[in-house]
Protein backbone atom coordinates (compact mmCIF):
# COMPACT_ATOMS: atom_id res chain seq x y z
CA UNK A 1 0.00 0.00 0.00
CA UNK A 2 0.91 3.61 -0.27
CA UNK A 3 1.02 5.44 3.03
CA UNK A 4 0.19 9.10 2.59
CA UNK A 5 1.70 10.80 5.58
CA UNK A 6 0.80 14.30 6.68
CA UNK A 7 3.54 15.33 9.03
CA UNK A 8 6.12 17.82 10.22
CA UNK A 9 9.53 18.45 8.67
CA UNK A 10 12.07 15.95 9.93
CA UNK A 11 9.65 13.35 11.26
CA UNK A 12 10.01 11.03 8.28
CA UNK A 13 13.61 11.18 7.13
CA UNK A 14 14.51 9.55 3.84
CA UNK A 15 16.64 6.80 5.42
CA UNK A 16 13.77 5.82 7.70
CA UNK A 17 11.36 5.63 4.80
CA UNK A 18 13.71 3.50 2.78
CA UNK A 19 14.09 1.14 5.65
CA UNK A 20 10.33 0.94 6.15
CA UNK A 21 9.65 0.38 2.49
CA UNK A 22 12.23 -2.37 2.34
CA UNK A 23 10.85 -4.00 5.46
CA UNK A 24 7.09 -3.83 4.77
CA UNK A 25 6.69 -3.35 1.03
CA UNK A 26 4.55 -0.25 1.57
CA UNK A 27 5.57 3.00 -0.08
CA UNK A 28 5.44 6.32 1.70
CA UNK A 29 4.48 9.72 0.37
CA UNK A 30 5.18 12.60 2.68
CA UNK A 31 3.39 15.94 2.81
CA UNK A 32 4.86 18.50 5.16
CA UNK A 33 2.55 20.67 7.16
CA UNK A 34 1.83 22.21 10.54
CA UNK A 35 -0.97 21.98 13.05
CA UNK A 36 -3.31 24.49 11.52
CA UNK A 37 -2.83 23.32 7.97
CA UNK A 38 -3.30 19.71 8.99
CA UNK A 39 -6.67 20.53 10.40
CA UNK A 40 -7.58 22.76 7.49
CA UNK A 41 -6.54 20.16 4.93
CA UNK A 42 -8.42 17.39 6.65
CA UNK A 43 -11.42 19.59 7.05
CA UNK A 44 -11.40 20.30 3.33
CA UNK A 45 -11.02 16.66 2.42
CA UNK A 46 -13.41 15.61 5.17
CA UNK A 47 -10.70 13.46 6.58
CA UNK A 48 -9.58 12.08 3.25
CA UNK A 49 -6.48 12.32 1.13
CA UNK A 50 -4.11 11.09 3.84
CA UNK A 51 -3.67 7.91 5.77
CA UNK A 52 -1.82 9.20 8.81
CA UNK A 53 -1.48 12.66 10.33
CA UNK A 54 0.66 14.01 13.15
CA UNK A 55 -1.04 16.92 14.88
CA UNK A 56 -0.03 17.97 18.37
CA UNK A 57 -1.94 16.28 21.17
CA UNK A 58 -3.65 19.49 22.26
CA UNK A 59 -5.15 20.10 18.79
CA UNK A 60 -7.04 16.86 18.32
CA UNK A 61 -10.10 16.79 20.51
CA UNK A 62 -11.29 20.27 19.54
CA UNK A 63 -10.89 19.64 15.83
CA UNK A 64 -12.63 16.30 16.16
CA UNK A 65 -15.55 17.90 17.96
CA UNK A 66 -15.90 20.54 15.29
CA UNK A 67 -15.20 18.69 12.05
CA UNK A 68 -15.10 14.97 12.79
CA UNK A 69 -12.03 14.40 10.67
CA UNK A 70 -10.37 11.50 12.49
CA UNK A 71 -11.26 7.96 13.23
CA UNK A 72 -10.56 6.38 16.61
CA UNK A 73 -7.34 4.51 17.05
CA UNK A 74 -7.66 0.79 17.44
CA UNK A 75 -5.31 0.47 20.38
CA UNK A 76 -5.13 -3.25 19.87
CA UNK A 77 -3.15 -2.65 16.72
CA UNK A 78 -0.64 -0.40 18.41
CA UNK A 79 2.19 -2.02 20.27
CA UNK A 80 1.86 -0.18 23.60
CA UNK A 81 5.07 -1.67 24.82
CA UNK A 82 7.05 0.53 22.49
CA UNK A 83 5.83 3.76 24.24
CA UNK A 84 6.94 5.52 27.35
CA UNK A 85 3.85 4.67 29.43
CA UNK A 86 3.38 8.07 31.07
CA UNK A 87 3.40 9.83 27.73
CA UNK A 88 1.08 7.32 26.15
CA UNK A 89 -1.41 7.69 28.97
CA UNK A 90 -1.22 11.49 28.99
CA UNK A 91 -1.76 11.63 25.27
CA UNK A 92 -4.61 9.17 25.29
CA UNK A 93 -6.24 11.28 27.93
CA UNK A 94 -5.89 14.52 26.08
CA UNK A 95 -7.04 13.13 22.74
CA UNK A 96 -10.13 11.39 23.95
CA UNK A 97 -13.36 12.64 22.45
CA UNK A 98 -16.69 11.07 23.09
CA UNK A 99 -15.05 8.15 24.81
CA UNK A 100 -12.75 7.24 21.93
CA UNK A 101 -9.01 7.74 21.74
CA UNK A 102 -7.78 9.59 18.69
CA UNK A 103 -4.04 9.95 19.22
CA UNK A 104 -0.89 8.21 20.39
CA UNK A 105 2.33 10.15 21.06
CA UNK A 106 5.31 10.31 18.76
CA UNK A 107 7.70 13.22 19.20
CA UNK A 108 7.87 15.65 22.05
CA UNK A 109 9.76 18.81 22.65
CA UNK A 110 9.46 22.37 23.71
CA UNK A 111 9.47 25.81 22.34
CA UNK A 112 11.46 28.51 24.00
CA UNK A 113 14.22 30.84 22.98
CA UNK A 114 17.06 30.32 20.58
CA UNK A 115 19.68 32.93 21.33
CA UNK A 116 23.00 33.98 19.99
CA UNK A 117 24.53 34.39 23.45
CA UNK A 118 27.42 36.43 22.19
CA UNK A 119 25.25 39.00 20.44
CA UNK A 120 22.27 38.99 22.77
CA UNK A 121 23.35 37.85 26.21
CA UNK A 122 20.42 39.64 27.86
CA UNK A 123 17.64 37.51 26.41
CA UNK A 124 16.31 35.18 29.11
CA UNK A 125 12.59 35.29 28.68
CA UNK A 126 10.09 35.97 25.87
CA UNK A 127 9.55 39.60 26.90
CA UNK A 128 13.28 40.19 26.61
CA UNK A 129 12.83 39.92 22.85
CA UNK A 130 11.25 43.35 23.11
CA UNK A 131 14.26 45.03 24.69
CA UNK A 132 16.13 47.73 22.81
CA UNK A 133 19.41 45.79 22.83
CA UNK A 134 18.11 43.45 20.18
CA UNK A 135 15.99 45.87 18.20
CA UNK A 136 15.44 44.73 14.61
CA UNK A 137 17.19 41.42 15.18
CA UNK A 138 14.55 39.20 16.72
CA UNK A 139 11.98 36.91 15.23
CA UNK A 140 9.05 34.77 16.32
CA UNK A 141 6.01 33.20 14.74
CA UNK A 142 2.59 34.76 14.58
CA UNK A 143 0.94 31.64 15.96
CA UNK A 144 -0.80 30.66 19.14
CA UNK A 145 2.35 29.43 20.96
CA UNK A 146 3.68 32.97 20.84
CA UNK A 147 0.55 34.28 22.52
CA UNK A 148 0.81 31.60 25.20
CA UNK A 149 4.55 32.11 25.73
CA UNK A 150 4.28 35.88 26.04
CA UNK A 151 1.35 35.50 28.41
CA UNK A 152 3.36 33.28 30.76
CA UNK A 153 6.36 35.55 30.60
CA UNK A 154 4.10 38.49 31.41
CA UNK A 155 3.11 36.65 34.56
CA UNK A 156 -0.30 35.50 33.33
CA UNK A 157 -1.64 31.95 33.15
CA UNK A 158 -3.51 31.37 29.89
CA UNK A 159 -3.96 27.63 30.42
CA UNK A 160 -5.92 28.32 33.55
CA UNK A 161 -8.23 30.58 31.59
CA UNK A 162 -8.89 28.10 28.77
CA UNK A 163 -12.43 27.49 29.86
CA UNK A 164 -13.21 31.02 30.90
CA UNK A 165 -13.69 33.00 27.77
CA UNK A 166 -13.79 36.40 29.44
CA UNK A 167 -10.61 35.82 31.35
CA UNK A 168 -8.91 34.44 28.31
CA UNK A 169 -9.93 37.44 26.26
CA UNK A 170 -8.53 39.68 28.91
CA UNK A 171 -5.20 37.89 28.77
CA UNK A 172 -5.18 38.04 25.01
CA UNK A 173 -5.77 41.75 24.94
CA UNK A 174 -2.78 42.32 27.21
CA UNK A 175 -0.61 40.11 25.08
CA UNK A 176 -1.84 41.83 21.98
CA UNK A 177 -0.77 45.18 23.36
CA UNK A 178 2.65 43.81 24.23
CA UNK A 179 3.16 42.22 20.84
CA UNK A 180 2.15 45.37 19.04
CA UNK A 181 4.52 47.49 21.04
CA UNK A 182 7.22 44.89 20.45
CA UNK A 183 6.65 44.87 16.74
CA UNK A 184 9.40 47.36 15.76
CA UNK A 185 11.92 44.95 17.26
CA UNK A 186 10.89 42.14 14.96
CA UNK A 187 12.79 41.54 11.77
CA UNK A 188 10.26 39.14 10.36
CA UNK A 189 7.69 36.69 11.62
CA UNK A 190 9.08 33.32 10.70
CA UNK A 191 6.90 30.54 9.39
CA UNK A 192 9.12 27.50 8.83
CA UNK A 193 11.74 25.73 10.93
CA UNK A 194 14.48 25.98 8.32
CA UNK A 195 13.71 29.63 7.80
CA UNK A 196 14.44 30.62 11.39
CA UNK A 197 17.52 28.40 11.41
CA UNK A 198 18.85 30.24 8.39
CA UNK A 199 18.08 33.63 9.83
CA UNK A 200 19.97 32.83 13.02
CA UNK A 201 22.80 31.20 11.18
CA UNK A 202 23.35 34.21 8.92
CA UNK A 203 23.25 36.57 11.87
CA UNK A 204 20.28 38.48 10.51
CA UNK A 205 18.48 37.44 13.69
CA UNK A 206 20.13 37.06 17.09
CA UNK A 207 17.27 35.94 19.29
CA UNK A 208 14.07 34.16 18.51
CA UNK A 209 11.22 32.27 19.99
CA UNK A 210 11.60 28.86 18.40
CA UNK A 211 11.69 25.13 18.87
CA UNK A 212 14.40 23.67 21.01
CA UNK A 213 15.70 21.48 18.25
CA UNK A 214 16.60 24.40 16.00
CA UNK A 215 18.74 25.83 18.73
CA UNK A 216 20.59 22.58 19.28
CA UNK A 217 21.19 22.10 15.61
CA UNK A 218 22.75 25.53 15.35
CA UNK A 219 24.78 24.95 18.47
CA UNK A 220 26.60 22.23 16.62
CA UNK A 221 27.72 24.73 14.03
CA UNK A 222 28.16 27.79 16.20
CA UNK A 223 28.76 27.43 19.91
CA UNK A 224 27.39 30.90 20.61
CA UNK A 225 23.91 29.93 19.50
CA UNK A 226 21.78 27.66 21.61
CA UNK A 227 18.37 26.93 22.97
CA UNK A 228 17.48 28.73 26.18
CA UNK A 229 14.54 27.63 28.28
CA UNK A 230 12.77 30.85 29.19
CA UNK A 231 12.59 31.73 32.85
CA UNK A 232 8.83 31.66 32.74
CA UNK A 233 9.00 28.14 31.41
CA UNK A 234 9.36 26.41 28.07
CA UNK A 235 6.15 25.30 26.35
CA UNK A 236 5.95 21.54 26.08
CA UNK A 237 4.27 19.83 23.17
CA UNK A 238 3.74 16.28 22.04
CA UNK A 239 3.08 15.51 18.41
CA UNK A 240 0.94 12.44 17.85
CA UNK A 241 -0.21 9.91 15.36
CA UNK A 242 -3.84 10.31 14.36
CA UNK A 243 -5.87 8.49 11.69
CA UNK A 244 -7.79 10.64 9.22
CA UNK A 245 -11.40 9.53 8.97
CA UNK A 246 -11.20 8.40 5.37
CA UNK A 247 -7.66 7.09 5.29
CA UNK A 248 -7.44 4.11 3.01
CA UNK A 249 -4.31 2.40 4.28
CA UNK A 250 -4.95 1.88 7.95
CA UNK A 251 -2.82 -1.21 8.09
CA UNK A 252 0.13 0.65 6.61
CA UNK A 253 -0.48 3.42 9.13
CA UNK A 254 -0.36 1.03 12.07
CA UNK A 255 2.69 -0.61 10.54
CA UNK A 256 4.38 2.77 10.34
CA UNK A 257 3.52 3.63 13.94
CA UNK A 258 4.85 0.35 15.25
CA UNK A 259 7.86 0.65 13.00
CA UNK A 260 8.98 4.15 13.93
CA UNK A 261 8.43 3.60 17.63
CA UNK A 262 11.05 0.89 17.68
CA UNK A 263 13.97 2.36 19.59
CA UNK A 264 16.50 2.12 16.76
CA UNK A 265 14.08 3.84 14.36
CA UNK A 266 13.05 6.42 16.90
CA UNK A 267 16.70 7.35 17.18
CA UNK A 268 16.77 8.10 13.45
CA UNK A 269 13.83 10.46 13.92
CA UNK A 270 15.52 12.18 16.80
CA UNK A 271 18.62 12.59 14.73
CA UNK A 272 16.72 14.14 11.88
CA UNK A 273 14.16 16.21 13.79
CA UNK A 274 16.35 16.99 16.76
CA UNK A 275 13.62 16.12 19.25
CA UNK A 276 13.20 13.14 21.52
CA UNK A 277 10.42 10.66 20.98
CA UNK A 278 7.95 8.83 23.12
CA UNK A 279 9.68 5.59 22.22
CA UNK A 280 10.73 3.63 25.24
CA UNK A 281 14.51 3.45 25.03
CA UNK A 282 14.48 5.57 21.94
CA UNK A 283 17.07 7.91 23.40
CA UNK A 284 19.54 5.11 23.99
CA UNK A 285 20.98 5.22 20.51
CA UNK A 286 20.90 9.01 20.26
CA UNK A 287 24.28 10.56 20.03
CA UNK A 288 25.82 11.96 23.14
CA UNK A 289 26.27 15.47 21.83
CA UNK A 290 22.53 15.99 21.45
CA UNK A 291 21.93 14.65 24.91
CA UNK A 292 24.54 17.03 26.25
CA UNK A 293 22.90 20.00 24.59
CA UNK A 294 19.54 18.92 25.90
CA UNK A 295 20.89 18.66 29.39
CA UNK A 296 22.56 22.03 29.14
CA UNK A 297 19.31 23.70 28.04
CA UNK A 298 17.21 21.78 30.51
CA UNK A 299 18.54 21.66 34.06
CA UNK A 300 16.08 19.91 36.37
CA UNK A 301 14.27 23.09 37.43
CA UNK A 302 13.70 23.99 33.79
CA UNK A 303 12.21 20.58 33.14
CA UNK A 304 9.92 20.98 36.11
CA UNK A 305 8.94 24.38 34.80
CA UNK A 306 7.83 23.11 31.37
CA UNK A 307 4.24 24.15 30.63
CA UNK A 308 2.51 21.28 28.81
CA UNK A 309 -0.30 22.27 26.52
CA UNK A 310 -3.74 21.16 27.67
CA UNK A 311 -6.25 20.37 24.90
CA UNK A 312 -7.53 23.46 23.19
CA UNK A 313 -11.28 23.86 23.56
CA UNK A 314 -13.12 24.24 20.28
CA UNK A 315 -13.64 27.85 19.23
CA UNK A 316 -10.75 29.33 21.15
CA UNK A 317 -8.73 29.69 18.01
CA UNK A 318 -11.14 32.17 16.50
CA UNK A 319 -10.36 34.58 19.31
CA UNK A 320 -6.65 34.03 18.95
CA UNK A 321 -6.84 34.41 15.19
CA UNK A 322 -8.34 37.85 15.48
CA UNK A 323 -5.59 38.90 17.87
CA UNK A 324 -2.89 37.57 15.58
CA UNK A 325 -4.42 39.37 12.61
CA UNK A 326 -4.45 42.63 14.53
CA UNK A 327 -0.84 42.25 15.56
CA UNK A 328 0.08 41.46 12.03
CA UNK A 329 -1.66 44.55 10.73
CA UNK A 330 -0.58 46.98 13.43
CA UNK A 331 1.91 49.68 12.60
Amino acid sequence: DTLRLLTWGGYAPENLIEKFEAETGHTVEVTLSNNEEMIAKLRATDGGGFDLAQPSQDRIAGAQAEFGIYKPIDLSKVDAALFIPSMLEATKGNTTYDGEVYGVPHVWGTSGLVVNTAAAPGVKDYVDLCSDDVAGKVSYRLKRPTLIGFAFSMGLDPFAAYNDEAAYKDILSKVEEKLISCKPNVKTYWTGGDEITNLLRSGEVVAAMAWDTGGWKLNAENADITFVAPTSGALGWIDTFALPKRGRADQAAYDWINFVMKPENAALVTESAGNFTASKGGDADVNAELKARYQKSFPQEAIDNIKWYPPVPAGLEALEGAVLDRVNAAN
Partner: protein
Amino acid sequence: MNASGKRLTLILLMAPLFIWLVALIVIPHIEILYVSLREKVGVREYEFGLANYMVFFNEPLYWNTFMRTAVMSILATALTLLIGFPVSYYIAKLTRGRSKTILFLLCLIPFWVSELVRTYGWMILLRESGLVSGFLQYIGLASEPIEFLYNDAAIMVGLVYTSMLFMVVPLVTTLDSLDDSMIEAAYDLGGGGVSVWREIVIPHAMPGIVSGCIIVFMLSLGNYLTPILLGGKDSLWFTGLIYSQFITRFNWELGAAFGMLLLVLSSTIVWAGLKLSGQTLTRTMGR
Protein backbone atom coordinates in the same frame (compact mmCIF):
# COMPACT_ATOMS: atom_id res chain seq x y z
CA MET B 1 -27.87 22.24 -43.60
CA ASN B 2 -31.46 21.81 -42.55
CA ALA B 3 -32.99 23.46 -39.52
CA SER B 4 -33.00 20.45 -37.19
CA GLY B 5 -29.37 19.66 -38.00
CA LYS B 6 -28.49 23.23 -37.21
CA ARG B 7 -30.30 23.02 -33.93
CA LEU B 8 -28.53 19.84 -32.98
CA THR B 9 -25.16 21.39 -33.78
CA LEU B 10 -26.04 24.37 -31.65
CA ILE B 11 -27.02 22.19 -28.74
CA LEU B 12 -23.90 20.05 -29.04
CA LEU B 13 -21.68 23.12 -29.10
CA MET B 14 -23.54 24.74 -26.26
CA ALA B 15 -23.25 21.74 -23.93
CA PRO B 16 -19.55 22.04 -22.98
CA LEU B 17 -19.89 25.77 -22.44
CA PHE B 18 -22.87 25.29 -20.21
CA ILE B 19 -21.37 22.51 -18.17
CA TRP B 20 -18.19 24.53 -17.70
CA LEU B 21 -19.85 27.79 -16.73
CA VAL B 22 -22.62 26.38 -14.61
CA ALA B 23 -20.66 23.70 -12.78
CA LEU B 24 -17.43 25.58 -12.24
CA ILE B 25 -18.40 29.24 -12.13
CA VAL B 26 -22.06 29.85 -11.38
CA ILE B 27 -22.91 27.17 -8.84
CA PRO B 28 -19.66 27.54 -6.86
CA HIS B 29 -20.27 31.26 -6.53
CA ILE B 30 -23.80 30.72 -5.32
CA GLU B 31 -22.36 28.20 -2.93
CA ILE B 32 -19.85 30.55 -1.33
CA LEU B 33 -22.51 33.19 -1.09
CA TYR B 34 -24.58 30.64 0.78
CA VAL B 35 -21.73 29.59 3.05
CA SER B 36 -20.86 33.20 3.78
CA LEU B 37 -24.37 33.64 5.10
CA ARG B 38 -24.02 30.79 7.57
CA GLU B 39 -23.50 32.07 11.05
CA LYS B 40 -21.68 29.79 13.42
CA VAL B 41 -23.50 29.57 16.70
CA GLY B 42 -21.88 26.55 18.27
CA VAL B 43 -20.06 23.32 17.57
CA ARG B 44 -21.52 22.02 14.28
CA GLU B 45 -24.40 24.47 14.60
CA TYR B 46 -25.14 27.14 12.04
CA GLU B 47 -27.82 29.74 11.44
CA PHE B 48 -28.65 31.90 8.51
CA GLY B 49 -27.45 35.47 9.03
CA LEU B 50 -25.10 38.28 8.24
CA ALA B 51 -22.77 37.78 11.18
CA ASN B 52 -19.75 37.06 9.02
CA TYR B 53 -20.20 40.32 7.18
CA MET B 54 -20.70 42.11 10.50
CA VAL B 55 -17.32 40.78 11.63
CA PHE B 56 -15.79 42.39 8.61
CA PHE B 57 -17.43 45.74 9.15
CA ASN B 58 -16.86 45.78 12.91
CA GLU B 59 -13.22 44.88 12.83
CA PRO B 60 -11.16 47.84 11.55
CA LEU B 61 -8.30 45.50 10.77
CA TYR B 62 -10.23 43.69 8.06
CA TRP B 63 -11.70 46.84 6.71
CA ASN B 64 -8.29 48.53 6.60
CA THR B 65 -6.65 45.58 4.94
CA PHE B 66 -9.40 45.61 2.38
CA MET B 67 -8.79 49.27 1.59
CA ARG B 68 -5.05 48.92 1.71
CA THR B 69 -5.18 46.05 -0.76
CA ALA B 70 -7.38 48.04 -3.10
CA VAL B 71 -5.25 51.16 -2.92
CA MET B 72 -1.98 49.34 -3.36
CA SER B 73 -3.40 47.37 -6.27
CA ILE B 74 -4.50 50.56 -7.96
CA LEU B 75 -1.09 52.05 -7.33
CA ALA B 76 0.61 48.97 -8.73
CA THR B 77 -1.64 49.17 -11.79
CA ALA B 78 -0.77 52.81 -12.36
CA LEU B 79 2.93 52.14 -11.94
CA THR B 80 2.82 49.20 -14.32
CA LEU B 81 1.07 51.36 -16.88
CA LEU B 82 3.55 54.20 -16.47
CA ILE B 83 6.56 51.93 -16.74
CA GLY B 84 5.14 49.69 -19.43
CA PHE B 85 3.66 52.25 -21.78
CA PRO B 86 6.90 53.80 -23.06
CA VAL B 87 8.36 50.37 -23.59
CA SER B 88 5.26 49.14 -25.42
CA TYR B 89 5.31 52.23 -27.55
CA TYR B 90 8.96 51.66 -28.34
CA ILE B 91 8.32 48.09 -29.38
CA ALA B 92 5.18 48.85 -31.35
CA LYS B 93 6.19 52.00 -33.14
CA LEU B 94 9.96 52.41 -33.09
CA THR B 95 11.12 48.96 -34.07
CA ARG B 96 10.41 46.94 -37.17
CA GLY B 97 10.42 43.37 -38.33
CA ARG B 98 12.87 41.11 -36.60
CA SER B 99 13.95 43.41 -33.82
CA LYS B 100 10.32 44.03 -32.97
CA THR B 101 9.65 40.31 -32.67
CA ILE B 102 12.77 39.82 -30.58
CA LEU B 103 12.02 42.65 -28.17
CA PHE B 104 8.46 41.44 -27.84
CA LEU B 105 9.61 37.93 -27.07
CA LEU B 106 12.10 39.26 -24.56
CA CYS B 107 9.15 40.79 -22.77
CA LEU B 108 7.52 37.37 -22.58
CA ILE B 109 10.45 35.30 -21.46
CA PRO B 110 10.29 36.21 -17.74
CA PHE B 111 6.77 34.90 -17.75
CA TRP B 112 7.73 31.49 -18.90
CA VAL B 113 8.53 30.73 -15.27
CA SER B 114 6.13 30.77 -12.40
CA GLU B 115 5.34 33.74 -10.25
CA LEU B 116 6.90 31.87 -7.40
CA VAL B 117 10.27 31.73 -9.13
CA ARG B 118 10.07 35.36 -10.14
CA THR B 119 9.33 36.39 -6.60
CA TYR B 120 12.05 34.13 -5.35
CA GLY B 121 14.47 35.96 -7.65
CA TRP B 122 13.52 39.24 -6.05
CA MET B 123 14.04 37.73 -2.62
CA ILE B 124 17.57 36.77 -3.56
CA LEU B 125 18.18 40.26 -4.87
CA LEU B 126 16.63 42.29 -2.10
CA ARG B 127 17.41 40.39 1.09
CA GLU B 128 19.90 41.81 3.56
CA SER B 129 22.53 39.38 2.39
CA GLY B 130 21.34 39.82 -1.16
CA LEU B 131 22.79 41.20 -4.34
CA VAL B 132 21.51 44.75 -4.21
CA SER B 133 22.79 45.26 -0.71
CA GLY B 134 26.07 43.60 -1.67
CA PHE B 135 26.41 45.77 -4.74
CA LEU B 136 25.80 48.96 -2.77
CA GLN B 137 28.43 47.95 -0.27
CA TYR B 138 30.80 47.05 -3.07
CA ILE B 139 30.56 50.44 -4.73
CA GLY B 140 30.79 52.14 -1.37
CA LEU B 141 27.30 53.58 -1.17
CA ALA B 142 26.56 51.57 1.94
CA SER B 143 28.77 50.63 4.82
CA GLU B 144 26.75 47.70 6.11
CA PRO B 145 24.12 45.34 4.76
CA ILE B 146 20.77 46.96 4.05
CA GLU B 147 17.47 45.14 4.15
CA PHE B 148 15.34 45.89 1.09
CA LEU B 149 12.97 43.04 1.65
CA TYR B 150 9.91 42.91 3.89
CA ASN B 151 8.38 46.28 3.13
CA ASP B 152 5.69 47.74 0.94
CA ALA B 153 8.16 48.99 -1.62
CA ALA B 154 9.35 45.42 -2.13
CA ILE B 155 5.74 44.32 -2.60
CA MET B 156 5.32 47.04 -5.19
CA VAL B 157 8.43 45.95 -7.05
CA GLY B 158 7.17 42.40 -7.07
CA LEU B 159 3.62 43.26 -8.13
CA VAL B 160 4.75 45.50 -10.96
CA TYR B 161 7.23 42.92 -12.14
CA THR B 162 4.75 40.09 -12.05
CA SER B 163 2.07 42.05 -13.91
CA MET B 164 4.20 43.66 -16.55
CA LEU B 165 3.50 41.15 -19.32
CA PHE B 166 -0.23 41.60 -18.98
CA MET B 167 0.17 45.31 -19.51
CA VAL B 168 2.72 45.20 -22.28
CA VAL B 169 0.98 42.66 -24.49
CA PRO B 170 -2.35 44.48 -24.93
CA LEU B 171 -0.56 47.80 -25.22
CA VAL B 172 1.78 46.58 -27.93
CA THR B 173 -1.16 45.02 -29.75
CA THR B 174 -3.26 48.17 -29.78
CA LEU B 175 -0.36 50.51 -30.46
CA ASP B 176 0.72 48.28 -33.29
CA SER B 177 -2.65 48.78 -34.89
CA LEU B 178 -2.22 52.55 -34.80
CA ASP B 179 -1.36 53.41 -38.36
CA ASP B 180 1.83 55.47 -38.61
CA SER B 181 0.02 57.68 -41.06
CA MET B 182 -2.27 58.87 -38.24
CA ILE B 183 0.72 60.25 -36.40
CA GLU B 184 2.18 61.62 -39.59
CA ALA B 185 -1.10 63.25 -40.47
CA ALA B 186 -1.24 64.86 -37.04
CA TYR B 187 2.29 66.23 -37.47
CA ASP B 188 1.51 67.32 -40.98
CA LEU B 189 -1.41 69.35 -39.64
CA GLY B 190 0.93 71.10 -37.22
CA GLY B 191 0.68 68.86 -34.17
CA GLY B 192 3.61 68.49 -31.78
CA GLY B 193 4.66 65.72 -29.40
CA VAL B 194 2.26 66.41 -26.57
CA SER B 195 -0.84 67.06 -28.61
CA VAL B 196 -0.27 63.99 -30.73
CA TRP B 197 0.00 61.87 -27.59
CA ARG B 198 -3.01 63.39 -26.00
CA GLU B 199 -5.29 63.44 -29.00
CA ILE B 200 -4.16 60.50 -31.10
CA VAL B 201 -1.98 57.96 -29.32
CA ILE B 202 -3.71 57.75 -25.95
CA PRO B 203 -7.28 57.69 -27.30
CA HIS B 204 -6.28 55.02 -29.78
CA ALA B 205 -4.56 52.93 -27.13
CA MET B 206 -7.47 53.23 -24.71
CA PRO B 207 -8.87 49.72 -25.19
CA GLY B 208 -5.40 48.30 -24.62
CA ILE B 209 -4.80 50.50 -21.62
CA VAL B 210 -8.10 49.49 -20.07
CA SER B 211 -7.68 45.79 -20.72
CA GLY B 212 -4.11 45.89 -19.42
CA CYS B 213 -5.18 47.80 -16.35
CA ILE B 214 -8.04 45.47 -15.58
CA ILE B 215 -5.89 42.39 -15.76
CA VAL B 216 -3.04 43.94 -13.79
CA PHE B 217 -5.42 45.22 -11.19
CA MET B 218 -7.08 41.85 -10.81
CA LEU B 219 -3.74 40.08 -10.61
CA SER B 220 -2.51 42.47 -7.93
CA LEU B 221 -5.71 42.34 -5.95
CA GLY B 222 -5.78 38.57 -6.10
CA ASN B 223 -2.10 38.11 -5.50
CA TYR B 224 -1.01 36.02 -2.58
CA LEU B 225 2.59 35.03 -3.02
CA THR B 226 4.14 38.42 -3.54
CA PRO B 227 2.84 40.11 -0.39
CA ILE B 228 3.53 36.97 1.64
CA LEU B 229 7.07 36.48 0.44
CA LEU B 230 8.26 40.04 -0.11
CA GLY B 231 6.06 41.87 2.33
CA GLY B 232 7.04 42.91 5.81
CA LYS B 233 5.72 41.98 9.18
CA ASP B 234 2.80 44.39 8.90
CA SER B 235 1.92 43.99 5.29
CA LEU B 236 -1.39 42.23 5.22
CA TRP B 237 -3.10 41.47 1.96
CA PHE B 238 -6.76 40.72 1.67
CA THR B 239 -6.25 37.46 -0.15
CA GLY B 240 -3.91 36.53 2.69
CA LEU B 241 -6.80 36.97 5.08
CA ILE B 242 -8.99 34.75 2.97
CA TYR B 243 -6.34 32.08 2.80
CA SER B 244 -5.73 32.21 6.50
CA GLN B 245 -9.43 31.90 7.20
CA PHE B 246 -9.55 28.83 5.02
CA ILE B 247 -6.15 27.35 5.68
CA THR B 248 -5.02 28.21 9.17
CA ARG B 249 -8.29 29.14 10.86
CA PHE B 250 -10.51 26.60 9.09
CA ASN B 251 -13.19 29.25 9.32
CA TRP B 252 -14.81 28.79 5.92
CA GLU B 253 -17.80 30.90 6.76
CA LEU B 254 -15.79 34.05 7.41
CA GLY B 255 -13.43 33.21 4.53
CA ALA B 256 -16.37 32.88 2.18
CA ALA B 257 -17.72 36.24 3.32
CA PHE B 258 -14.31 37.79 2.67
CA GLY B 259 -14.28 36.15 -0.73
CA MET B 260 -17.66 37.63 -1.62
CA LEU B 261 -16.47 41.03 -0.48
CA LEU B 262 -13.34 40.78 -2.60
CA LEU B 263 -15.47 39.82 -5.55
CA VAL B 264 -17.75 42.79 -4.99
CA LEU B 265 -14.76 45.10 -4.62
CA SER B 266 -13.02 43.89 -7.74
CA SER B 267 -16.19 43.95 -9.81
CA THR B 268 -16.99 47.45 -8.62
CA ILE B 269 -13.58 48.82 -9.43
CA VAL B 270 -13.45 47.10 -12.82
CA TRP B 271 -16.93 48.30 -13.60
CA ALA B 272 -16.02 51.84 -12.57
CA GLY B 273 -12.88 51.70 -14.68
CA LEU B 274 -14.87 50.55 -17.70
CA LYS B 275 -17.48 53.25 -17.19
CA LEU B 276 -14.89 55.99 -16.74
CA SER B 277 -13.05 55.01 -19.88
CA GLY B 278 -16.18 54.28 -21.88
CA GLN B 279 -15.12 50.73 -22.71
CA THR B 280 -16.96 47.44 -22.38
CA LEU B 281 -15.74 44.15 -21.05
CA THR B 282 -16.49 42.42 -24.31
CA ARG B 283 -14.50 44.93 -26.31
CA THR B 284 -11.45 45.09 -24.07
CA MET B 285 -11.17 41.49 -22.94
CA GLY B 286 -12.80 39.73 -25.85
CA ARG B 287 -10.25 41.36 -28.16
